[in-house]
């Protein structure tokens, strides 16, 4: 039997983090951008054991200011894309307001560490979200375009095609075939 699940990534991660942090008997709070604050901190041993146990789930404790900053930028962008209310805000303003750095600084740190500009990352992320919506929901392209703050379906299709080399419809076709293919590889 094969079946499919839909999951809330954010909720899953937070629940997992809570479960593991609860084991250490410390008081902590979870921020929105993948930030964990622990009162009094952790001993080196505790920290390592937490890192190992979380690694199994693909969760990493980040070191280094730049990487942390890059991660925070990414998380902030995720928030931005998720939150409908933030759509009208300019990205640069939003990022510098949220992370308290100048946008120029954020931009240079980001492209230095990822070889991609923040703008390109946002496009990639938006297209990724569009892909997810195409695969996991029954939303029409128009609805997806609206949800991801594209001015039109054409704009979404154009960016999608430019980024992935595939049109949304052929992507959808391939993915639905792929699902069938995975269920029954013989056909």
């Amino acid at each position, binding site marked *: 039997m094969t079946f499919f699940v839909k999951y809330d*990534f954010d909720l899953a991660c937070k629940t997992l983090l809570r479960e593991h942090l609860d084991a250490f008997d410390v008081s902590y709070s979870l921020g929105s951008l993948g930030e964990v604050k622990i009162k009094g901190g952790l001993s080196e041993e505790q920290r390592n054991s937490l890192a190992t146990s979380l690694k199994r789930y693909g969760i990493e404790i980040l070191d280094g200011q730049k990487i942390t900053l890059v991660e925070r930028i*990414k998380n902030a962008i*995720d928030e931005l894309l998720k939150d409908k209310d933030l759509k009208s805000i300019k990205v640069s303003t939003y990022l510098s307001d949220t992370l308290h750095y100048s946008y120029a600084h954020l931009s240079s740190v980001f492209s*230095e*560490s*990822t*070889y*991609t500009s923040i703008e390109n*990352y946002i496009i*990639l*992320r938006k297209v*990724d979200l569009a*892909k*997810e919506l195409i*695969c996991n929901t029954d939303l029409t392209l128009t609805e997806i375009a609206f949800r991801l703050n594209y001015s039109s379906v054409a704009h979404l299709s154009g960016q999608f095609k430019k*980024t*992935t*080399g*595939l049109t949304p419809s052929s*992507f959808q076709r*391939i*993915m639905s*075939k*792929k699902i069938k*293919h995975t269920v029954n590889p013989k056909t």
Partner: protein
Amino acid sequence: MDTQLLNIALADDDEDDRMLFSEAIDEIGIRTKLSLFKHGQELMDYLTLPNIVLPNLIFLDLNMPIKNGLQCLKEIRENPDLKDLCIAIYSTSSSEKDVEETFLNGANIYLNKPNNFVKLQASVERVLQLNWQYHTSNLNKDTFLFRI
């Protein structure tokens, strides 16, 4: 990225293509280690050796003697140790049939061999970037599908 060395494998039977590819990748400002394989079997033999460092990204030509790209792709996806590897198809064929078939069998990127060196460089760089983003960012690997 600045701390890591990117491991890349290329399986292509054409010597010229291997050479051009390795020249292209050398001129991209990303620290990489490129392993070259003459055909699919050679690649598979390497991948299934014990205690090797698995490549982060594999470029696969489709038309190869002994074992072709599609066979390799299927084998990699069926092998529990290898199935999560990022695979870019690197082929001359622009036939929709090939594109679709490789995507269905789990290819992440389909890259047409360009007919121009600058384009080759740009394409390879883009593949590396995409791979890096999928490696480090919270992107959905189930829908990791690009045609370049």
